[in-house]
């Protein structure tokens, strides 16, 4: 499989005829991205071109992070057998799901325009259809302006809101594997959510949620919320231990009703623990899991939580350098408001926060 | 709490001496009494501070306290506690108990 990772500046370096081009673009640079896609489509008429918006992108070569807007658009280009993939689009209000050839085994990369209600149920449905640990991906945005999410996805020459793109890859010919890894550990007492609706937690242990959280973590400043400083481990009914709990970030707090809003749908009787970062040595140990995904002629997709960017600041670059040195696979990716992947293979792919999600696509070796 | 214990101890000494008990006996008695009294007052303190205390539990403690105080000869306080048990207004009850502690 031929593949290359390029930016707007290096777009001319594509030296083969790709069949798939996936791009990520700054929301405010839609036009530029559309223009570049049009050019690419002209150059490679057969190629399937799609992508999603992002706040910032991740790229293979320095600067790996486009903190200063260095990479408004990044692309990963691959020449994959046309019969071995399919791109499908599901709108948030679509009742239906995707159609697949059930004779074949599929895995998929998901790009969601935004975190919209019901997205987790949809993910679950998809996984039921495609199988355990079959989904990898990220959510582009959670920011809402004028009651409309500013995140979108691009496909078939158009931008779409409240939409999820499902890029299915035939697992006979290709292999899509990956892992989701985080750098926190649950501490303190297990606390039960006693009143909640959607992604809002009203009460923990029968007390106002915000009060409980602030009692533990100290007053939550606007900055600490914006930098996602205090993630929670959320244990749902199925999980046995907190090792299997998924991380979820605090999205906002409401001081009027003392509730908190998180990036996950929660339910009464789910339990919580606060998360604190693990030490550097453990981070290194944890990151070594990525080594297992090293493949020849592979392309890596990276979905890193916006929380990691905010929380780790300049340290994130070293995570990426570590990844690059150990993986030796070209990658592009973006900062997400929710990562999809398996933290624990027993529980399968799920939506997480505060993680680095990696998916590696390679040709099956004979 | 200390003052209640001390007051009761002093009263008990005189009270039991009046019945002609020997000093050794009285001393022993006072030591047990003081321990029981402190335990009861501590329970009461905990009950007052906790939101989970039921009226029955509180009444049981007050009852035990009353009995003990009577036995140790501190009748005025025992009667005060008895009156307190009849008080239906929990706020008044709490205020008086806090005064005790």
């Amino acid at each position, binding site marked *: 499989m031929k593949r290359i990772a390029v930016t707007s500046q290096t777009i001319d370096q594509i030296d083969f005829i790709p069949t798939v081009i996936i791009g990520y673009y700054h929301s405010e640079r839609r036009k530029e991205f559309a223009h570049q896609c049009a050019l690419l489509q002209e150059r490679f008429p057969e190629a399937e071109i799609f992508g999603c918006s992002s706040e910032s992108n991740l790229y293979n070569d*320095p600067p790996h992070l486009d903190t200063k807007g260095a990479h408004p658009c990044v692309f990963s280009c691959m020449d994959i057998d046309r019969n071995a993939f399919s791109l499908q689009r599901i709108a948030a209000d679509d009742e239906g799901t995707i159609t697949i050839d059930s004779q074949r085994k599929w895995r998929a990369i998901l790009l969601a325009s935004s975190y919209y209600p019901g997205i987790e149920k949809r993910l679950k449905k998809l996984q039921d259809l495609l199988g355990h640990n079959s989904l990898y991906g990220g959510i582009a945005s959670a920011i809402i302006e004028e009651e409309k999410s500013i995140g979108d996805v691009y496909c078939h020459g158009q931008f779409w809101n409240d939409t999820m793109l499902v890029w299915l890859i035939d697992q006979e010919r290709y292999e899509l594997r990956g892992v989701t890894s985080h750098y926190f550990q649950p501490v303190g*007492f297990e606390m039960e959510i006693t009143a909640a609706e959607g992604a809002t937690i009203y009460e923990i242990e029968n007390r106002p949620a915000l009060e409980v959280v602030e*009692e533990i973590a100290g007053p939550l400043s606007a900055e600490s919320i914006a930098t996602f400083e205090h993630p929670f481990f959320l244990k749902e009914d199925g999980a046995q231990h907190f090792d299997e709990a998924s991380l979820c970030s605090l999205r906002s707090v409401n001081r009027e009703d003392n509730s908190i809003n998180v990036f996950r749908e929660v339910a009464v009787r789910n339990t919580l623990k606060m998360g*604190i970062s693990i030490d*550097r040595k453990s981070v*290194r140990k944890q990151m070594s899991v990525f080594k297992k995904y090293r493949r020849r002629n592979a392309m890596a997709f990276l979905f890193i939580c916006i929380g990691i960017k905010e929380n780790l600041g300049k340290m994130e670059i*070293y995570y990426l350098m570590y990844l690059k040195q150990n993986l030796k696979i070209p990658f592009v990716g973006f900062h997400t408001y929710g990562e999809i992947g398996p933290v624990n293979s027993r529980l399968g792919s799920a939506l997480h926060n505060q993680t680095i999600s990696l998916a590696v696509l390679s040709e099956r070796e004979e | 709490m200390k003052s209640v214990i001390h007051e009761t101890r002093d009263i008990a000494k005189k009270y039991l001496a009046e019945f002609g008990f020997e000093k050794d*006996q009285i001393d022993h008695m006072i030591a047990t009494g003081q321990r029981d009294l402190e335990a009861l007052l501590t329970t009461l303190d905990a009950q007052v501070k906790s939101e989970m205390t039921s009226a029955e539990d509180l009444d049981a403690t007050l009852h035990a306290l009353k009995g003990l105080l009577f*036995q140790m000869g501190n*009748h005025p306080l025992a009667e005060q506690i008895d009156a307190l048990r009849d008080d239906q207004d929990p706020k008044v009850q709490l205020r008086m108990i806090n005064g005790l502690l």
Partner: protein
Amino acid sequence: MVLRTEDAQQFVKWIQEDFGISTHRAKEIVNQLQCYLEEEETLLLYDLTYAIYSRSETSLAPKIVHTVLKFFTHLYGQEYYQPFRDELIKHYTNLQEKLFMQMLEHARQIEDRSDSARKILLHTSKRLSETLDTQELMIANISHEMRTVLNAIYGYLSIVQERGELRGEEKSYLDKASSATTNLKALVSDILNITKINSGQIEIVNESFWLDKMVLECADQIAMDLEKKSAIDLDIEIDFLPTKLYGDQNHIMEIIVNLLSNAVKYTDKGFVRLSVHHTPISEKLIEVTFRVEDSGIGIHPDQIEHIFSPYSRFKKERQGLGLGLHISRQLAKKLDGKLRVESTPGEGSRFEFVLKLRVDKHHSIDLTGKHIYFYIENKEAKNMLEKISFLQTHGANVTVFRNEARFINHLLTPSDIRPDFITIITDKKGYAKFDALIYYLKTLATYQQAIFIAEMNQGDISLSYFDRIFEYQAPLSTYMLTRKKYTDQSTQVKKRIAILAVDDTETNLEILRMFILKAFPNATVDMATGGYEAVGMFKIKSYDVVFLDLKMPGMDGFKVLEKLKQINDSPHIYAFTADVYKSNFDKVLHAGFDGLLEKPLQPGMLEKMIKKALDEKRDS
């Protein structure tokens, strides 16, 4: 600016030497440095900070800074780079500054993260300790409840045992159940003690006490354990200075008894020795050393440091959970004393409990005018001569008899002397003989005031008429007693009355007992602190009068009454309560109580109630 080949080679060599990395990697770094000097996009800074960040070596950052300095100093000193000196300085400062900034940033991030983690952990540890406190309280409460229930179980088991109907295997099961219950009771009371100590609930109650008396009482308390181990001798060595001290007698005894019973537990043959010595510190203060030695299995040096930690039972096959020494050490601390141990495996152990005690200054010894008879038959009574001489120096009139016939003769010969104390030290047969004699002597006017003392009675015979019985020696303080005068000795003496008092507050029970014994010295008063316990006791023994508190946790007075009536309807059962209202009174009578005894106690009323029962008993 381009590096000369020889300089580049030099740098590669330095990097290899300084950081011990491969030539290939060192060359890569030098290439990056070259790019940096040419102001091209470079990974140099990333690589350096990445190295600092990812390799958790604190020495790495200064080492890198030092190496960079070495490079630039080298270049700066070369004639060839003369024209680039300004550029070199710029690059150098730039690079160092960025490295420095990166490190600061890194430090700040770590600090931020650890700060928020600290907050969470602090809160967690606070909650945890609160939880532990609650749990401890819970354990204490449960243990308290358990003790009551266990007493009941123990009571029922005793009934079955006493009936003696079980045989063979079934009997052995019963014995096992009974012994397990005893162990469990001991454990529960240990747990209660620990929780009390830990929560600061243990109160130090200082009182005046006789040191020798206390020591001998300790020895008495382990008599039962010793009975099972006939190959051990218990030695007691005590300076026979009758010192009256001021301190927490009960807790001191608890420690000594624990040490003694451990010594007995871990010794199969040989000796267990308790010696007590005191050294004056000042006029008012003495230091007392209680030493418990044994010839037992000893403690291995590895175990000795853990011996005082909870649950450290070092020989698993011996009984108990090992809480005793932990409790003793904690108690010793509470008493400002020291508890230490020395031991040689296979030879034995030596525990020493040292503490300072105040001498009771109010005390002076005056035995003037007291007549004391000693009868010592063929027994090597250790320290007895010192004791007698002490009594004499303090004014006592002591007569020592060594011949039985002569002694008995003397006792039976009418005399003007009315002895205050008659001490008898003899053997099993001798005690039995004298016990019968005392029954007669007590009817004589001469001996109305006399206190008959049996010393060195090893507890294998039951004596009915001796006033005081000691397994070892009678402490000197015994001779300072005066005979209690009983006012009403008419009917009560002959008819013993058994009374059961039930109340969940121990003080209430104690006070009730004091009042009863004051009026009826021959009464036996048993006390139960809960309904279940009361029912258990009621099944074992028959009582004439029961005083029953109405409000108790668990089973209340009314329920207890119901149960008691089912077992035996004959005794008088009185409600004992502080709630005396008309309604209550009616309720009490309606329930089947014989009457109501009020708190505060009315001694007159109490006497009437008991007398009524006594009269009925006599009539029957």
